[in-house]
């Protein structure tokens, strides 16, 4: 066996990630989601033509971790900012990376209208059903009965309204070509999420329109669960409100099984 074969690199940091320590809590889904995005960009050779827009929320500092051009957007406005970028530089690859407060509460209008215009942008939507950065307040996606600092004792529909399923709302828009909901809650689900992200990126490369991948993502800190229990909570509880799977696919792609 020669040395080259003996020391073949089988795992490493994707080039689309910087060599940096993140501020994310132990067990947080962001680190995995970042890595999946970075792996997909690397595999499609997109890093050097990518311009990304992070949210306001836990991933607000994503430009310290992603190794490609990024511009900060005001809270909720990522898809408006991304629209401006994509229209000026249609040959660049433009993505937004947004949480549930950013995308499904304060930025609902920007999200729906960018999708409806069919902007050729890929959106990664991190749904952890809580406001993480600000310390565990009720999110638009907080489940009925889920405890949050502003829905103490659990979300009650009569008092707090019901969780919003923005992915299905986005899917109604004519300009949306692909929406899939995945989860960062098992090896299998993570692999599925990567496939979905890559497919969403392909939609943009092929100029099909708007696409979004929702990732149910663990927030052990604010859920007050261990990382392991947080994965279990996604698989046992969260998926009942947010079932996994393809919500819309008008790409015409034949999925390789």
């Amino acid at each position, binding site marked *: 066996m020669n040395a080259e074969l003996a020391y073949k690199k089988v795992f490493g940091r994707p080039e689309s990630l910087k060599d940096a320590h993140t501020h994310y809590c132990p067990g947080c889904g962001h680190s995995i989601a970042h890595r999946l995005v970075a792996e997909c960009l690397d595999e499609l050779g997109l890093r050097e033509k990518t311009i990304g827009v992070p949210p306001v929320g836990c991933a607000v500092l994503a*430009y310290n971790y992603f190794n490609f051009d*990024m511009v900060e957007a005001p809270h909720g*406005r990522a898809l408006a900012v991304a629209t401006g*970028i994509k229209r000026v530089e249609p040959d660049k690859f433009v993505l937004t990376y947004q949480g549930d407060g950013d995308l499904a509460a304060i930025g609902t*209008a920007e999200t729906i209208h960018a999708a409806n215009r069919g902007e050729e942008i890929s959106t990664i939507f991190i749904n952890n059903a809580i406001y993480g950065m600000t310390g565990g307040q009720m999110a638009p996606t907080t489940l009925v009965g889920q405890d949050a600092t502003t829905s103490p004792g659990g979300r009650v529909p009569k008092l707090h309204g019901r969780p919003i399923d923005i992915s299905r709302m986005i899917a109604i828009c004519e300009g949306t070509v692909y929406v899939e909901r995945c989860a960062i809650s098992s090896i299998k689900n993570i692999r599925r999420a990567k496939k979905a992200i890559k497919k969403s990126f392909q939609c943009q490369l092929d100029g099909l329109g708007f696409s979004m991948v929702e990732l149910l993502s663990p927030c052990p800190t604010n859920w007050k669960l261990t990382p392991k229990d947080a994965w279990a909570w996604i698989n046992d509880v969260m998926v009942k409100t947010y079932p996994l799977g393809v919500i819309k696919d008008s790409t015409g792609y034949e999925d390789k099984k």
Partner: protein
Amino acid sequence: MRGSHVVGEAAVRAGCRFYAGYPITPQNELPEYLSARMLDVGGTFIQGESEIASINMVLGAAAAGARAMTSSSSPGIALKQEGISYMAGQELPAVVINMMRGGPGLGNIAPSAADYFQATRGGGNGDYRTPVLAPAGCQELAELTFVAFDLADKYRTPVMLLGDGLMGQVMEPVVFPDFIDLESLPKKEWALTGCKGREARAIFSMYLGQKGELYYHNLNLQEKYDRITASEQRWETVMTEDAELVVIAYGTAARIAESAIEELREEGMRAGLFRPITLWPFPVAPLRQVAKKCHKVAVFELSLGQMLEDVILSVGERAEIYFYGLPGGIIPTPADVAEFIHSSQKADGKVGRRIEV
């Protein structure tokens, strides 16, 4: 040509290739004009879903290196303040057109000028300033639109062009500056273009570091604002040389005042006009010089006294200050303003009032 169309054509000639805006009266003729004109020049026109979305589309286009613009009227500008503050912090250039209407709230659609504070003090958060240009007529709308884009790029800052509903509607002949050559503009080395062949870049306004990062960021911004204050003040004087009383007015109010002054000159009264063109930076020293000589200034505004505060700060006790202002989009005639000037001259308090400093 109609004022709003003038701004649209001038913007295109000044190299603007991205416009996003949301309909609001009295400035709709501008987006309507650009919705067609941008297609001619290969630019982008987007009717955003809101003023907030529109200013943030401009933010994105600016980050990608384009000369970008949005426009609105008073309540719409209130919504754009978030984006303006972010762009100030991110040091992104853009041009914001404001054709003012009556307020507060929905107010009315008449040509008020009650948003001097909003424009020059800003409604966004943080220690930032926005250069504000106040044209008085269609020719200047064309010229100052060019200036606005140049200032925005030179200092990497949002710049506001402050007109009013009347100026947007009025039709006057205009000689447009020639189209600029987009290739001749200085390269924006900071713009996001994808990181091929270089380190990845980030454009942001948040500085969480514990080593005074935000402190130094603000000091750097202030140093820039000081440079703008030192180099970019613009104003016009009309017949101030021998004037015993000088009217201070900007925009549409200055046009009315100029007519009044011409009439008074014919009557033999030595009146003049000082017209600030940059409202920020306010031409403090030039006004002070004029005030020292004439001993009496008369401030006329289409509001209840906003620029007046900058006049007081500039003039202090160097001259007697009189004020006459009308709210709610009421446009007085030159004769009304002439009465105010007479009244100020005689200090009889019949029209307007003396401002005690």
